[in-house]
């Protein structure tokens, strides 16, 4: 029982307080706002590291170390609703990741949002997001998690629509909110069902929690429709929430549009932390999903679904990313694809691999987004990669860090964290007993990732600056961003490289930390089983992707912004389909949205004819009554009333002479009354 684990609540509360103060701060207090938000986040970060170190030094005797504090929130009937917080390795690494990446992005935002009029509001929202996200990862109650879950959804909505005067931003915000809501409804149903089944929403509660053996066995043994175990059904419902939040197919459509928000927001919320919340959720309720009647040997139905959804998303989004031209959209589809990877990892049982990829991805994707932000900033708010080019010369620091991020994402072997985590996932997928499908999909995804990242880097950083050719009049050359923006880039780049060393097959420290084992360094592990073979295979895919990309885009960089893409020349139809994102939005517009509108029209018709008709009848009846009423009032009541009033006024005139305005006369009356009262009491037999 350490100090930090009993005061873990401080971590989300500090940014929450900052946000509350900022909410009532007037706009011009820029430095104050930034200092408060960053200060609170820095404190939260310190505390998070403290929590992490505490977890690190925790006594690991058998199984995962957990420390949780539950408290009662409110009473419903005779039941108390409990909330609580939890400190375990998963929480600890997530806390550290969220607060560290968050802190860096907060600092970066100072530079990026410098010119914005609503600076204070921005930091208020950011701090609120930080608070909710930190609360989410340390929740020991599915309810608290859901509250924070909705709060991050809210801040995501607010921040995507931060520039609400842009119609596209407002539309994107609404889209994000509504799309994720579809998943959240299922999530909430899952929560209710879980509460109904187990009577608690606490994850761990000395054996009584819903993720502990007692509740799980009872849920596994009962079945619902078509023989599905209740735990599987609940798990799938909860997974729906994760699908919405993490932008998995088919609810991925909101995430690329969410890039309308400011770039730090894209980096923080829509790349590193919030979208990973879905993955975190799946990791958190992993015991529930994993529960199957056959014990550990049998693969549960829920996880199979997770694996397939993840692997399809990974390839699907990567395909789309190949044909995009907006720098941030490419990264957004890449995020969707990588989140698919994480889901895939969790689905095939590679719990630790999935979380490891989550952490490394958070770092290098935040790095890429911030780098993209720096590029956009440097190119005067230009987002189309066809109008960039040659930025290597103008923005050396950004280029270097961006290249590191790109190589980490692509999975360039040995030195970059993405390689190790992706390899770990492929390894888990290979070992999955059900099917090899996800494994091959993962390999294709790896190839595509390497390809589109190479394409993007070639477009942005190689060749000549194309915007200057297109527009001579505005001949502004790109420039490097200020230090407040590049410093976080450098720190993140270091993270993107170094983090990989924590989870190599030779020294799987991270994976063992999460699963509560003691890691040992053994170089020989690299050569055991199919480890080396898989590594070689994935290296081959990556090399293929990068090589193809370089061959297509790097050797002969495009010289004009309007020039057609090399792929487009080869296969215009396929490329067009990819550029149109497989027309998912259009399909949705034609089916779901149109259907909703139809339903709305039917409801409206019903309302207008049937309901309104009833109301109108009632109105006429009421009108008739009131007319009667008025008649009676005027001719029956008023006449009599007037007469009595006149009489009353006359008598009141007489009485009013008693009210002469002399206060002391009133007092005297009171005095006499008191004397009489006392007399009555004494001689009336009162005493």
């Amino acid at each position, binding site marked *: 029982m350490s100090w930090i684990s009993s005061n873990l609540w401080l971590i989300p509360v500090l940014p929450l307080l900052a946000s509350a103060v900022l909410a009532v701060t007037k706009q011009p207090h820029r430095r104050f706002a930034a200092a408060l938000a960053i200060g609170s986040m820095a404190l939260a970060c310190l505390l998070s590291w403290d929590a992490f170190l505490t977890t690190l030094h925790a006594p690991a005797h058998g199984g995962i170390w957990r420390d949780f504090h539950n408290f009662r929130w409110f009473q419903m009937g005779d039941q108390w609703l409990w909330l609580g917080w939890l400190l375990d390795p998963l929480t600890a690494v997530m806390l550290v990741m969220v607060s560290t990446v968050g802190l860096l992005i907060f600092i970066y935002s100072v530079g990026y949002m410098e010119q914005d009029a609503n600076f204070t509001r921005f930091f208020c929202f950011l701090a609120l997001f930080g608070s909710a996200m930190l609360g989410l990862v340390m929740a020991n109650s599915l309810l608290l998690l859901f509250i924070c879950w909705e709060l991050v959804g809210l801040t995501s909505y607010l921040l995507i629509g931060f520039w609400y005067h842009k119609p596209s931003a407002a539309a994107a915000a609404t889209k994000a909110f509504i799309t994720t809501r579809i998943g959240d409804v299922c999530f909430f149903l899952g929560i209710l069902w879980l509460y109904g089944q187990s009577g608690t929403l606490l994850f761990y509660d000395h054996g009584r929690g819903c993720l502990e053996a007692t509740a799980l066995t009872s849920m596994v043994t009962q079945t619902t429709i078509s023989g599905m175990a209740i735990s599987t059904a609940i798990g799938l419902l909860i997974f729906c929430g994760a699908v919405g939040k993490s932008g998995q197919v088919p609810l991925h459509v909101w995430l690329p549009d969410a890039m309308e928000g400011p770039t730090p927001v894209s980096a923080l919320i829509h790349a590193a932390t919030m979208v990973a919340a879905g993955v975190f959720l799946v990791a958190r309720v992993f015991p529930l999903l994993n529960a199957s009647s056959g014990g550990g040997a049998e693969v549960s139905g829920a996880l199979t679904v997770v694996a397939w959804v993840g692997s399809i998303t990974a390839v699907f989004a990567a395909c789309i990313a190949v044909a995009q031209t907006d720098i941030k959209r490419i990264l957004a589809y890449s995020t969707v694809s990588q989140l698919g990877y994480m889901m895939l990892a969790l689905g095939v049982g590679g719990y630790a691999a999935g979380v490891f990829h989550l952490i490394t991805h958070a770092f290098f994707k935040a790095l890429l987004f911030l780098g993209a932000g720096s590029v956009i900033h440097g190119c005067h708010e230009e987002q189309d990669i066809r109008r960039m080019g040659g930025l290597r010369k103008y923005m050396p620091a950004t280029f270097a860090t961006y290249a590191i991020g790109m190589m980490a994402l692509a999975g360039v072997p040995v030195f970059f964290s993405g390689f190790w985590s992706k390899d770990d996932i492929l390894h888990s997928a290979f070992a999955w007993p059900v099917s090899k499908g996800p494994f091959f999909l993962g390999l294709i995804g790896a190839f595509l990732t390497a390809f589109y990242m190479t394409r993007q880097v070639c477009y942005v950083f190689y060749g000549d600056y194309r915007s200057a050719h297109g527009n001579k009049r505005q001949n502004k050359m790109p420039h490097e961003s200020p230090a407040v923006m590049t410093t976080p880039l450098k720190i993140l780049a270091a993270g993107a490289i170094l983090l990989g060393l924590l989870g190599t097959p030779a020294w799987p420290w991270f994976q063992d930390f999460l699963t509560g084992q003691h890691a040992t360094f053994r170089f020989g592990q690299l050569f055991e089983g199919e480890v080396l073979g898989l590594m070689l295979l994935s290296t081959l895919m990556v090399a293929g992707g990068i090589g193809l990309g370089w061959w297509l885009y790097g050797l002969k960089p495009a010289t004009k912004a309007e020039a057609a893409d090399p792929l487009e020349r080869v296969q215009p139809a396929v490329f067009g389909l990819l550029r149109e994102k497989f027309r998912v939005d259009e399909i949705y517009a034609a089916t779901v949205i149109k259907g909703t509108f139809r339903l709305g029209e039917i409801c409206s018709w019903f309302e207008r004819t049937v309901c309104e008709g009833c109301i109108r009848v009632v109105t006429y009846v009421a009108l008739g009554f009131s007319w009667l009423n008025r008649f009676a009032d005027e001719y029956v009541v008023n006449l009599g009333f007037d007469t009595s009033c006149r009489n009353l006024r006359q008598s009141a005139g007489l009485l009013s002479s008693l009210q002469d305005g002399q206060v002391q006369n009133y007092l005297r009356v009171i*005095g006499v009354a*008191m004397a009489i009262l006392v007399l009555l009491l*004494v001689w009336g037999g009162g005493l």
Partner: protein
Amino acid sequence: MQAAFFIIAALIVIGGLAAMLVRKLVHAVLWLMVTLASLAALFLLLGAQFVGFAQILVYVGAVAILIVFAILLTRNSEWAKAGRLASPSWLVGVGIAGLATGCLIASILASSIPPGVPVPPAASVADIGQKLMTEYVLPLEAVGLLLTAAMIGAVIIAMPEDKRG
């Protein structure tokens, strides 16, 4: 004990009478303070230490100063030199007061209250604090609210009208 009671009682009555009879308002306030301070002494004599101190703190420290300020702010009332001291029908007022007091005293003397226990109930400050925070917490909050309202009300009433906005 007895001597103390009689001295204090005499001070109270003399102070009260003088407060009501003197011509100068400021002197009336000073006499009032004599009465109230003696009353505080009587409270101490009766074992109600906390009440006695509170009485001095509130009346001598606050109410007296308030009245004095009010007197000085209504300058021409300070010296009641012109005109009569009492209202024209003062005899009626005194008569009524005498009647009321007579009734009270008569009823007190005629009543059959048991003479009472000599041992005073202990009222340590800690007890009072304990009770104020537990049993009497609602009245305490109400009084706090009332005093706040009274303060704001007094400020607004006494503020010159052109400043009230």
